[in-house]
């Protein structure tokens, strides 16, 4: 199982994204909406930078003391009658969950939106048992019907417009209505209600697990999470091992940062919290409760220079701010974690071999780092990835390596450099017309396919300066 979503090569995926006008329109207008709403929320809060700092410190402290808080969380959940399982790999997590389903002889599972279950490929694992999996999140449900992977971590079906959704509903569920969003949502609700009531097992993700009380907090927009957490007898939470906060107090700070950064809301419409199994004096909650804590490559990141990547609260602010994402869309990243955080995280979780282009899919403009509510230095981590690809993994193309060797020589030797400033114009002369290079050689070729490149100045600055100095002395 892998976090990859398809097998086509990088250039092809990028091209497909660029040519998908529908997707690009949907993505750019959503980005515009999210970004301006986020800005309003930041101003409203007043001291946004202080909040970010606080968020960053909470995440840093928690991840630095992850073993302690995981133990505390585990103790609390056990005390409340829940079963806790630490899964080192995706397979271990899936096996454990499959076993629970098998024991229950469950036929139907209702799920909330969860990135980590996408990461481990849980749906396929459950379907292989013959269980039916129902996604309760509208976006996830649309994608499930269409067998399409998510393209965004908060709004998974961001790449689809309402016409495409109408078609999917018509084709897969016999929908005959219009493409008015409300009508589509009503239809989905009526279809889903039925499913919720008959599911035997509920599976949720986790936004924040509160270590002090063993409570799981879910942040959703539709309130459908309640369907998974309250109706079925058996409830399973799947969480990435870093998705933890020490106490309710930190949870509040992070939820506030999360909702403001994700969709520019003070709070999302629904925040669901639940703790362990139902106790004798409680009226609702599951009889059987399982918490599956997934490592799947995360502990390898601990203690490295990429540790701060584990601070991520999956708000997607970096994705919403990213101009590269805007033009290529989420699927181009070939990871269920797209955008800047995806470009940082995916090679860490799934290796450079499969994802070596991702760290370069950024102009290093820094919009992601600026947007991140917990101050993860995303673009700096991308540079670090590039260094590893070049120096440790040795996966850089030969021509590039030669060019960079040349660069080192050129830039560390003033004489060579000076000569190049003299020769540049002459060297580029064959491709120059009216001081414009319209069809350049070598590395300039791709650039000049779409835009002009200027010819070097007639006289370099340094040679002008030298002459000026001389004439001043005379």
């Amino acid at each position, binding site marked *: 199982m892998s976090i990859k979503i398809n097998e086509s090569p990088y*250039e092809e995926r*990028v*091209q497909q994204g*660029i040519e998908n006008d529908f997707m690009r329109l949907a993505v750019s207008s959503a980005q*515009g909406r999210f970004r301006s709403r986020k800005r309003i929320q930041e101003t409203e809060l007043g001291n946004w930078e202080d909040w970010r700092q606080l968020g960053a410190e909470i995440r840093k402290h928690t991840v630095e003391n992850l073993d302690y808080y995981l133990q505390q969380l585990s103790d609390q959940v056990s005390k409340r009658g829940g079963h806790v399982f630490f899964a080192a790999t995706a397979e271990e997590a899936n096996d454990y969950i499959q076993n629970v389903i098998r024991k229950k002889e469950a036929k139907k599972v209702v799920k909330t939106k969860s990135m980590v279950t996408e990461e481990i490929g849980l749906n396929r694992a459950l379907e292989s048992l013959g269980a039916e999996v129902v996604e309760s999140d509208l976006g996830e449900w649309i994608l499930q019907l269409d067998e399409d992977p998510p393209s965004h971590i908060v709004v998974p079906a961001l790449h689809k417009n309402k016409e495409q959704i109408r078609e999917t509903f018509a084709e897969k569920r016999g929908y005959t209505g219009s493409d008015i969003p409300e009508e589509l949502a009503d239809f989905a609700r009526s279809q889903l209600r039925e499913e919720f009531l008959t599911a035997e097992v509920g599976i949720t993700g986790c936004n924040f697990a509160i270590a002090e009380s063993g409570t799981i907090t879910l942040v959703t927009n539709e309130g459908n999470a309640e369907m998974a957490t309250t109706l079925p007898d058996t409830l399973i939470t799947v969480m990435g091992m870093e998705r933890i906060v020490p106490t309710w107090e930190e949870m509040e700070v992070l939820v506030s940062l999360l909702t403001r950064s994700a969709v520019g809301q003070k709070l999302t419409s629904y925040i669901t919290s639940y703790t362990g199994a139902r106790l004798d004096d409680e009226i609702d909650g599951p009889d059987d409760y399982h918490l599956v804590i997934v490592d799947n490559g995360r502990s390898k990141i601990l203690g490295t220079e990429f540790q701060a990547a584990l601070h991520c609260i999956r708000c997607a602010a970096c994705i919403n701010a990213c*101009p*590269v994402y805007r*033009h*290529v869309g989420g699927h181009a990243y070939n990871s269920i974690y797209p955008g800047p955080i995806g470009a940082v995280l995916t090679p860490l979780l799934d290796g450079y071999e499969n994802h070596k282009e991702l760290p*370069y*899919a*950024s*102009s*290093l*403009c*820094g*919009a992601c*780092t600026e947007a991140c509510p917990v101050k993860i230095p995303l673009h700096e981590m991308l*540079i670090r*990835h*590039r*260094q590893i*690809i*070049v*120096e440790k993994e040795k996966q*850089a193309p030969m021509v*590039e390596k030669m060019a*960079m*060797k040349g*660069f*080192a020589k*050129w*830039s*560390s*030797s*003033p004489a060579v*450099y*000076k000569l*190049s*400033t003299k020769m*540049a114009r002459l060297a580029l002369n064959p491709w120059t017309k009216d001081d*414009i290079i319209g069809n350049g050689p070598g*590395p*300039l070729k*791709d*650039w000049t*396919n*779409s*835009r*002009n*490149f*200027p010819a*070097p*100045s007639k*006289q*370099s*600055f*340094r040679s*002008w*300066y030298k002459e000026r100095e001389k004439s001043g002395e005379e």
Partner: protein
Amino acid sequence: MKVSLFITCLCDIFSADVGKDTVEILERFGCEVDFPELQTCCGQPAYNSGYLTESKQAMKQMMRAFKHSEYVVGPSGSCVGMLKEYPNIFKNDPEWEDEAIKLANKSYELTQFLVEVLEIVDVGSAFKGRVTYHPSCHMSRILGVNEAPITLLKNIEGIEYIELPIKEDCCGFGGTFSIKNAAISEEMVKEKSQHVTETEAEYLVGGDMGCLINIGGMMQREGKTVKVVHMAEILNTTK
């Protein structure tokens, strides 16, 4: 005040005029300008591509070049931003760490130097025309220079300043990104060009040659008549 000019390799080779304007502006405000000839490139093309070892050779050359300078001023937010990164890059390097810190501390981007050090908000220039400004990412986000260029621009006599829509968005240059990911870069710069067109400005001003070459190259190819000029050129227009 003694100022060493950090010309940047792009200006040295492709836009000598921007360098000339920079010298003249600094001299206009009484700076004693020199040009240390040992300087080459800040190392960014290699550094941002992941070639740390190669980039350090360029960086050491720059530290040697500006060793005795009092102030280092350059017409580029991005390249000066790179100098400011040196202390992180040479951290715990016994031979170079101090030099890196010294160079970072005395380096300024041109508009930043004018406003923060010389405390000039009006350069006393005159320029007639509708002007919009693209704040390059490294100037604003890495170097943190946001207000200085806009203040200086707005105070130029005769200028009509129009804000660029979504001005903070990257133009798609990104150094080697524009070559390695040319297709994505192209979409980004097309969008930027579209935003410039929406302002109906006659001039697009910016403080980083790389971005200007990128945006200018696209607008020229699209047959648009907007003139793309560097900040230094516009600040150096006299009354």
